[in-house]
């Protein structure tokens, strides 16, 4: 598993609007996940199980080590509604600080 103490990411695309817009930054860390695992309503960085790229989504439910990830902007989001539950080990880090442009 990837461990990120603290890492800054830049947001691409619009599926997390209105919480996060394209071009915003977030600071994410694996430490909260080590302590208590992903929790409902956390914004997390995860590995897309199909495309293997890093995505940012919100945890909408956690069940038996698996998480359901959705974009806040559900009309413009490819997420667990398309690829289903993902293993909690695919979740790398949790967003701890959001740095917004506007």
């Amino acid at each position, binding site marked *: 598993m990837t461990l990120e103490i603290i*890492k*800054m*990411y*830049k*947001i*691409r*695309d*619009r*599926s*997390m*609007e209105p919480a*996060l817009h*394209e071009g915003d*930054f*977030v600071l994410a860390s694996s430490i909260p996940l080590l302590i208590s695992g992903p929790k409902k309503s956390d914004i997390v*960085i995860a590995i*897309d199980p199909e495309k293997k*790229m*890093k*995505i*940012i*989504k919100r945890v909408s439910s956690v069940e038996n080590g698996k998480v359901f990830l959705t*974009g806040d*902007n559900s009309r*413009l*989001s*490819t997420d667990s509604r*398309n690829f289903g539950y993902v293993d909690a080990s695919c979740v790398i880090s949790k967003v701890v*600080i*959001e*740095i*917004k*442009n*506007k």
Partner: protein
Amino acid sequence: MKSPSVYKIASALDRKFKSEEVYAHCDIPCGIYDPYAAQLAAHTVIRMDMLIEELGKSQVMDTESRNKMIRYVEVKEQHAENVKHEVRVLWGDYFKPEHAEKFPELHGLVWEIMKKASKCKQGTGIKESEELLEAVKKMAVIFWKTKGVDTVEAKSFYPTERTFVYPKV
């Protein structure tokens, strides 16, 4: 955090250290699909075969007729390709594994349409283009069934005088 100065600092860090991008991504699942376009293209292929046959009967093949013939063939070629494109989009983007489970003939039908459309490009037989339309109509029926919509096969108002599968609304 909505402080402009913090954002400026983050941007400066980003410029210097190039932070990794993370995707709040969307494949634009626009949800706008319709087997109408594939049927329309298949009708056009039939119509071109009809015109080609008619012109082929003509005794005179002057420049004017040759020009017409080339245009018919070009349009036929293009629309056979349009059938393939439209069907590929439905197959790849609209249909889900559960649809293929419910309609096990789906994958075979797509394959059949690909082959038949190529056949229409290779030749000028109306029989082939009719078969293409029939296969596309079968797919249209499946498409509407997956949405729980009944279909009706009705006469088109095109010079092909062949039918079209419409959703029953």
